[in-house]
């Protein structure tokens, strides 16, 4: 074994602890700076594009809607019409048909999927007390498996008329939306899962279940505040 020859297979200069630390910290600071600059530079444009995409999605989850209005849910549980979200309180989108009558409300919700948080939008029709549409706004679910929640026709059919009917005193949903195994849906409030995308499809059922249990009673009891003047 020769010890005086430098190891040729490794690259870069050899360094002491101080040098290693300087290099890592230096690169770290430089990289952080680059990322922050890019984030700041693209933020406005991304926000605009996302708002546009959200607007388009509202029309997708509420059939027959021709105009929309954003409403903010205040801390005291009251909805009020706003121009843009304040970044803290949840927002919903009221959709109106040609005659200006309230056709439905699109609600944004999110929850943990398989890979990352899934952000969805679903449409609620107060006159039939059902969920009438569903759209994935953001997901990083496994391509080919988890992303079936966006493409599988049988799964999407769950959201044609998913029951979120309220109890007689209008304080809560009678039967919370729950995910079930593929092919075992027997009640209008159950979401049929997808084999091969079990976790992702269950996540969607749970996200809608949790969100609708809170939002639907609130919305239904304030339907008048969504009506166009």
């Amino acid at each position, binding site marked *: 074994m020769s010890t005086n020859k430098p190891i040729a297979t*490794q*690259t*870069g*200069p*050899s*360094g002491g602890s101080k*040098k*290693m630390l300087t*290099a*890592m910290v*230096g*690169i*770290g600071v430089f*990289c952080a700076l*680059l*990322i922050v600059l*890019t*984030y700041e530079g*693209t933020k406005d*444009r*991304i926000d605009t*594009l*996302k708002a*546009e*995409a959200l607007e388009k999605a509202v029309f997708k989850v509420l059939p027959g809607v021709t105009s929309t209005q954003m409403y903010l849910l205040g801390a005291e549980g009251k909805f009020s019409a706003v121009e843009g979200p304040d970044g803290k309180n949840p927002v919903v989108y009221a959709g109106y048909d040609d005659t200006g009558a309230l056709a439905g409300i699109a609600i944004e919700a999110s929850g943990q999927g398989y*890979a990352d948080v899934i952000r969805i939008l679903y449409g609620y029709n107060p006159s039939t007390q059902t969920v009438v549409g569903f759209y994935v706004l*953001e*997901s*990083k*679910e*496994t*391509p*080919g498996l988890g*992303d079936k929640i966006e493409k599988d026709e049988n799964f999407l059919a769950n959201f044609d008329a998913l029951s979120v009917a309220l109890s007689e005193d209008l304080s809560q949903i009678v039967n919370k939306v729950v995910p079930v195994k593929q092919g075992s849906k027997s009640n209008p409030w159950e979401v049929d899962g997808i084999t091969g995308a079990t976790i992702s499809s269950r996540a969607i059922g749970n996200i809608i279940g949790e969100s609708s249990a809170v939002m639907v009673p609130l919305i239904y009891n304030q339907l008048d505040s969504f009506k166009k003047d």
Partner: protein
Amino acid sequence: MSAGITKNAELNPTPSSTDEFIKGLWRENPVFVQVLGMCPVLAVSNTAVNALAMGLATAFVLLMSNVLVASLRNFIPKQVRIASFILIIATFVTIVDYAIQAISVDLHKNLGAFISLIVVNCLILSRAEAFASKNTIGKSIMDALGMGLGFVFALFCLGAVRELLGNGTLFDIEVFPGSFQEWIIMILPAGGFFTLALWLLLFNFFKTKKVQA
């Protein structure tokens, strides 16, 4: 394959910048010869637009990381080089991620998880480790441009064939007349394997022919 590379290396002991460029584009094409980065190659080559966007995103990250690694090569101690390379690569992937979001939300949705996965694309780390950390900035740029364009070219070859046969269109423009029956399988995952196999067959056919001649 390896015999060809060794032979070329012997003929040109100090390859010129043009050689570094041509090498990645053709002779050592990252997809068709080195068969690297198969995950995005097979997954995001279902349409020509997706393939081009993914290819360009990867090429950009490759170019920028090669430039930075080459310019810092005398500053990064060998013990922390892999950590430094990954940090540099991850930074540019984040930048690309924001840039694509700013260009089009739909495109970002189509490419989805694969943008973040550029961080672990073996092509980029292998160029940083095997080339950029040992060569000048100029040569590293040529190497990255060659390899990057070679990757874009290969992805486009797959994407174009798959979109043409699977959807009857190219860049969403209808190419075949209305009576064309689409081969749906070509835009499904299996079509990626078929198309890649056919391109590899073609490349190897030319190579064998060249060796025989």
